[in-house]
């Protein structure tokens, strides 16, 4: 199986290298785009590549940056984690890009990290993730668990008075860490261990009969029950279908998902999903001037009025705008100077608020909870009052409770222990 994947990756990478082109003009600022355009993750990541290209185009229309034009360098890591590291090295050493926008899965980010740190590159990572990380060379513009999972659980607990919890996820690092955080959070809130059911399934799981039947039984004990789903990608559709077929409605047992967004809903029959929830920092349906301008721009760029926008796109948008601001502020694209200039940069987000880059390289974001509608859009049913600061190290996990990340002097550390007052030295 592994051999098969590597072989596939190799075959595709040969094709992909045709994609990356080297600049002719010397005085451009190069923007690397490291998103899979083939393989399993292409479904999600292609959109983000287009978003970066659109932003580059718009910036060039405005006259570029520091008097120079921006130039995008697109490579295809083909959903192959080791290839992400190779392509990152290629972007920095060979193409000499000034910044990289890229990665989706945590494992691809972890694969790129050592390269970025070794070559002192700059990466903007636009997807919600499990936290427990802060690198000097990475800016995390997606949500940390306290900006998605924890507020969603608070909503279920306070507004829907949920007493029993099913934590269902795909078996890999993001769901496992998120569920660990949630489990200890729920227990701290006084939920008994027998009221929590944890379940993991393989990637692309399609036979949900027994699990849904178990959830149904678990939820029929006379207490309000909800499913917190970190089920990833393809496995979602059969899951929701099975829920609907077995007669579990969103009123009885709502499912709140962290990986189901507009893009994922656009290819599927939404009938069985209506009424279930998702927690994000952005929805296409949010009404604001910035958002409608962004959506119009996206439709014009893709020449397709039906293309949807989603949360990682907003994170890319914010990241890109912050980077241009920081470059202008620093007057150079030098990584160290831009990195320092990034901290404290503010830019309007698409939901009518302001995004701030904090000292720990994470953003402040609003948290929204939306109900899935039959048109594949979300109806916002709850939101936080203002922006929530991203927390790199969870306060609910043993071992990361005392850690903070602070990339300003005098701490300058991604995992500073506030008790022992030491930086562990490990940079990722």
């Amino acid at each position: 199986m592994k051999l098969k994947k590597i072989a596939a990756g190799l075959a595709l990478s040969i094709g992909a290298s045709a994609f990356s082109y080297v600049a002719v003009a010397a005085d451009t600022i190069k923007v690397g785009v490291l998103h899979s355009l083939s393989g399993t993750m292409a479904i999600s990541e292609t959109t983000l590549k287009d978003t970066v290209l659109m932003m580059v185009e718009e910036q060039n229309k405005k006259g570029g940056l520091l008097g120079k034009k921006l130039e995008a360098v697109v490579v295809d890591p083909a959903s192959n984690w080791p290839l992400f590291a190779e392509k990152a090295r290629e972007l920095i050493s060979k193409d000499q890009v000034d910044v990289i926008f890229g990665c989706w899965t945590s494992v691809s980010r972890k694969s790129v990290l050592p390269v970025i740190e070794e070559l002192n590159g700059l990466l903007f990572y636009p997807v919600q993730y499990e936290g427990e990380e802060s690198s000097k060379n990475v800016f995390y513009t997606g949500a940390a668990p306290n900006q998605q999972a924890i507020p969603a659980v608070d909503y279920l607990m306070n507004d829907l008075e949920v007493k029993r919890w099913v934590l269902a996820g795909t078996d890999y690092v993001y769901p496992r860490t998120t569920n660990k955080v949630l489990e200890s959070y729920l227990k701290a809130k006084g939920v008994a261990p027998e009221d929590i059911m944890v379940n993991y399934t393989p990637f692309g799981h399609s036979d949900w009969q027994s699990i849904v039947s178990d959830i149904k039984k678990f939820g029929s004990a006379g207490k309000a029950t909800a499913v917190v789903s970190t089920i990833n990608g393809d496995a979602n559709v059969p899951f929701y279908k099975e829920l609907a077929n077995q007669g579990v409605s969103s009123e009885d047992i709502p499912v709140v998902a962290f990986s189901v967004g507009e893009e994922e809903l656009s290819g599927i029959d939404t009938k069985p999903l209506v009424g279930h929830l998702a927690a994000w920092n952005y929805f296409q349906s949010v009404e604001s001037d910035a958002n409608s301008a962004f959506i119009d721009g996206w439709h014009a760029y893709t020449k397709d009025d039906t293309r949807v926008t989603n949360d990682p796109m907003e994170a890319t948008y914010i990241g890109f705008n912050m980077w241009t601001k920081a470059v202008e502020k620093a007057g150079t694209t030098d990584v160290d100077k831009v990195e320092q200039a990034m901290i404290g940069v503010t830019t309007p987000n698409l939901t009518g608020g302001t995004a701030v880059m904090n000292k720990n390289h994470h953003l402040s974001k609003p948290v929204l909870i939306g109900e899935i509608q039959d048109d594949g859009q979300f109806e916002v049913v709850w939101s936080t009052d203002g922006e929530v600061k991203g927390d790199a190290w969870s306060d609910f996990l043993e071992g990361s409770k005392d850690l903070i990340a602070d990339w300003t002097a005098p701490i300058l550390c991604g995992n500073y222990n506030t008790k022992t007052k030491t930086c562990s030295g490990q940079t990722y």
Partner: protein
Amino acid sequence: MKQMTVVKQIIVRFGLLMALSLSLGSSWLHAQEPNSENPAPDQYAVSISAEVKVLFQELVAASLRDKSKILKQLDQHSGREMLPMFEAMLNGELYYQPDGLQLYQVKENASGNAVAYSVFGGELVDGLSIKKFKKVRVNNSLRKQLRNSIARIQLLYGEESERKAAAETMLSAMSDSAVALFQEAREKETVKEVQQLLDVGLAMNTVSTSVDSTERVAAIRALSSRLELPVKNLLMRLMDKNSDGEFKEADPLVRSAAESALKDIDGRIAYYGLLEKLFFGLSLGSVFLLAAIGLAITFGVMGVINMAHGEMIMLGAYTTYVVQLLMPNHLEWTILVAIPAAFLVSGSVGVLIERSVIRFLHGRPLETLLATFGISLILQQLVRTIFSPLNRQVSTPDWLSGSIELNPIFSLTYNRLSILIFSLIVFGLLMLVMKKTSLGLNVRAVSQNRDMARAMGIKTERVDSMTFGLGSGIAGVAGVALSQLTNVGPNLGQSYIIDSFMVVVFGGVGNLLGTLVGSFSLGVANKFLEPATGAVLANIIILVFIILFIQKRPKGLFPQKGRAAE
């Protein structure tokens, strides 16, 4: 002259139609006025009071939280006439005109266009621009509230199935007003099944509110044969202890009755749980069977290790999608058209692969493996280029959604049940082809002894490509079935190729019956393991088991016997 009258008639008719539709559209707002053009099929409109109309106007503009309050008021101020509005709102079909704040029900008509209907009465309203309409938004708590409101109305006035569903809905939230309704409904009710449900509700009420011990015990006895979940929860509550370790329920007689009733119920639940697991296992087995049966022919009978088998399944699923695009007005029946279409598409691709690649690699399994693996990558990327890497939407027809509820805790989902039956039909047909037709005879002859078969005048080359086409075609048919269960995307095939090989090797290469037994036993074993170990570990245990099994019996469950096997 004649022409003139026709034109006149048309004009008059058209005018009447316009007047009629306009008046119907706003009929509930003008309900008090006598309505002469409208022959009043819609009596409900007459009874809508001015007060309620004001509530409608408020409802449309209110926030989600306020809507709940307004719905409560609507519930109090009105009765069964609200039913069509509640239902439209529940289904997300209730719309309003932003300028007039008038309510309409918008749904698709027979040809698939969105059309507005008057909410009360359901007549078509023409000549309105639906694009300007806004939807009356609902969320989960509103849906729950609406469902309860609808249940209260339907309990008294609905059809038999509606009354039953209403009683079931209301059982889980019994209140004083619900008890009164149940009593009223019980007196009217004539259908035995619904009567029993109503009795359950009343007995539950007796258990929790009565002070007479013998009455309560009798009620518990009556409940002991019921499988409804609220009943079990009620009985469990009777057995609860408080923080000092004392029973909350003071009456020991009631407690012991509840205990024995619970034991009774738990026994049944365990029994149906077992049946359910068996069904899940058979259903998973049927998916294995469908995916593997084509491979059982190409790999089992011909001996070709076809790594592109999964992609044949994928092509079948995409054929379903294309057929669905071609006949958008008959979505219910696309599946039936897709089955032969998928067989032809995957089958001919299979023949093409056999003719162009595999026949040159005869007797060289490693090269065949690599070549077919390459073909599988090519087919995947081809589909990605043609249809985009995004999953495609194959809609499930209504007759394949939902489930047959045999009792409150045991139901069979239609899609799984149909696929189980379908897989058996496909298997039966394939057995017929192999045993009763000349093609089957030739295939068996070639697989047993190729040289001898050729000496007897069988065109082995032709038989090879026909066999490969048959195996691939059946994989395509499996793709149609799988499109109802999982995502239709470029990676669909990959998730089934391992399972398919596993089943064929386990069942015994070259033996179709082995594939049948193998797939069902692996499916059932998987589903019995899963609750104890979780889905990830269950898969691993099954694979480890097969490795050990193959060590012991390298030829699988049903090895081919005799000289032919060598």
